[in-house]
């Protein structure tokens, strides 16, 4: 079994969100980068669990990015995974990223492609579906459970107000959601091993972006909280009805 796990680098959750160049670029000045949590906790950890259940499994990691993404992909290698591939290009939009990943996936003929359900910076939830389409493979999004039985997978996916259980034959592309697995902390052995694991750099294929960011903006500041006395809860209910008009 060969699994490809897509890893993206995102600003740390607590990073200050600010923009430069007339609000056209994200200010990366003091940003600390992390592995996108959905990629790490759900996609990567589930792949590692599958490898633990079947030692013949091979896990490759792929990221699309400039050399500054190497630190992130090494961290992902420290958690598990056998080999990493970095496609040497800055990402432009979801489609260009998906095109690069699809190319890597084609070259490696993987049984499974795992991604996080979305990145926490652009919140697109797009790359998985695009990769699947470019590979003409089935796609299961927002998976909360994934079990393998030979070459058939049983996957639970989120739907509005519930879940759906489905069966699919490999190969398949799956975007991973909460429930798939639980966050792990890399140990010293993993960190040491990651140093010697191969990190291949491949050059991008030609693609064109379909979208471009014109401008960023910040939401208007909140007016401040209106506190109601704990002994007067009825007043809160009155405010919600008459002032905020939400109940």
């Amino acid at each position, binding site marked *: 079994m060969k699994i490809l796990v897509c890893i993206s680098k995102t600003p740390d959750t607590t990073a200050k969100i600010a923009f430069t160049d007339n609000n056209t670029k994200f200010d990366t000045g003091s940003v600390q980068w992390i592995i996108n949590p959905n990629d790490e906790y759900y996609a990567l950890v589930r792949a590692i669990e599958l490898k633990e259940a079947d030692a013949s499994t091979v896990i490759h990691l792929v990221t699309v990015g400039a050399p500054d993404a190497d630190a992130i992909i090494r961290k992902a290698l420290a958690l598990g995974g056998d080999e990493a591939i970095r496609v040497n290009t800055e990402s432009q939009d979801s489609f260009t990223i998906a095109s690069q990943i699809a190319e890597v996936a084609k070259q490696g003929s993987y049984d499974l492609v795992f991604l996080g359900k979305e990145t926490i910076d652009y919140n697109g939830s797009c790359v998985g579906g695009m990769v699947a389409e470019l590979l003409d493979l*089935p796609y299961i999004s927002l998976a909360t459970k994934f079990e393998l039985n030979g070459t058939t997978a049983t996957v639970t996916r989120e739907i509005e107000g519930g879940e759906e259980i489905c069966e699919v034959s490999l190969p398949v592309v799956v975007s991973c959601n909460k429930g798939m697995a639980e966050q792990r902390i890399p140990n010293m052995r993993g960190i040491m091993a990651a140093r010697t694991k191969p990190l291949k750099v491949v050059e991008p294929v030609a693609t064109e972006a379909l979208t*471009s960011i014109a401008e960023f903006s910040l939401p208007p500041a909140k007016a401040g909280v209106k506190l109601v006395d*704990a002994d007067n809860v009825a007043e*809160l209910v009155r405010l919600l009805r008459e002032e905020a008009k939400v109940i």
Partner: protein
Amino acid sequence: MVLIFIDIAEDGNVKKSSLEALTYGAQLAKQLGVEAQGVVLAPATEDLSALGKYGVSKIHQVKNDSLKYFDAQVYAKVLAQAVEQSGATVVVFSNNTDGKAVAPRLSARLKAGLVAGAVALPETSNGFAVKKSVFSGKAFANVNITTPVKIISLNPNAFKIEEGTGTAEVVELNATVDAPKVKVTAVKKQSGEVPLAEAEIVVSGGRGLKGPENWGILEDLARELHAGLACSRPVADAHWRPHNEHVGQTGGAIAPNLYIAVGISGAIQHLAGVNRSKVIVVINKDAEAPFFKAADYGIVGDLFEVLPKFTEAVKQLK
């Protein structure tokens, strides 16, 4: 022409999020001076011509048993044919669970630029720029779509449903439909509850509730308000509540009209999933809890005393 994908729930009804997409698509069509039409793939129990009241003139319906259950691969291929046959230049989805799977596939298939998670109508006076929420609700981006066919998927609850009058002509669309490769074997619905993503009011509990055995007082309030239930991450991690109720950066992102956070500190990762809520109410015994900074209304107090009074006061309204 603006083509709107109408998503059908398991019970055969049009999803609420699709009614938002219909209203949005119809208003966009008006703005562009073109027609709005809908497309339905799954078997619907509703009278589709009645969807005309949301502003669509025509509904393309594909009748094929293979479309009963959603399969993103099959759906994308059929939708591509619908776009071609109808001559649509803009396709609108809801950014709901199905939309998240099929819109990107259609985008890659047609090489049509997609903005996922739109929160407003596009600016079309000079180009085509769609505003979307980024950085987990901490900012917005205006994204230009530069391709001839454009795809937008609208965030649930970001656009108000508007009903007018009118009926739509329902026409059958002939399309090649593949057999699905994903076989749905079971659908489990949480019965009697309001789906979180669609809920207009959400009542949410954190570690302050101390344990799963105390959730009854929160459920009482949710029932009175006809609200969906949510929780913070440690609550789901400790298995006090199911994973699908976990909201925040690594859980679900929601944007209800009213979010009531009880016994939740308001860490930035939690806020990332709820900061698009229109009105936020916080109940916390710690006056210094960070959530008060993001709240519109708050009560500093012990939730075990405040909640029953809250529920009682809501009951009094009726």
